[in-house]
């Protein structure tokens, strides 16, 4: 399970890099990032992490809501027996 978490965070890191590269870098006249690209990558990465964190909170809420609904339903079924 721990290995899965490492694998998943590496996967997320890879997808973050891919996305911010795609959105921020589009000029290939030199082999080094220019100042604008570098700043864009930093903003993109920060934004992506804040976004992920917020979705994570919502995801947790929605999951536990669903779980309590499930339990309420199962109790009703028990009572109806």
């Amino acid at each position: 399970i721990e290995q899965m978490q490492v694998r998943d965070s590496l996967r997320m890191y890879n997808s973050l890099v891919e996305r911010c590269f795609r959105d921020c870098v589009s000029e290939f006249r030199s082999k080094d990032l220019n100042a604008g690209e570098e700043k864009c990558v930093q903003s993109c990465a920060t934004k992506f992490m804040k976004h992920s964190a917020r979705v994570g909170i919502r995801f947790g809420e929605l999951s536990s809501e669903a779980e309590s609904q499930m339990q309420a339903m199962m109790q009703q079924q028990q009572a109806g027996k």
Partner: protein
Amino acid sequence: MAQAGQPDPAAAIEMAKQEMDYRVNLFNAMVSSCYEKCIDKRYKDGELSVGENSCIDRCSSKYWQVTGIVGQMLGAQGGMQ
């Protein structure tokens, strides 16, 4: 000596792994889908705007509802071939 209601440990671990795998994939899909729908890709800075934040909340909720609808449809026809 596995009995109904008392599955053997190896199978239980396998199921827990798949459950977690499924949840991680769902979360990742939610993150990237809502990123596409809600985030301004100009990356002036690393902050999420008020509009982006409320879009993320609603997007997470709607995404969750879509998984519910699709899950019900697949359940109704006995899984997906």
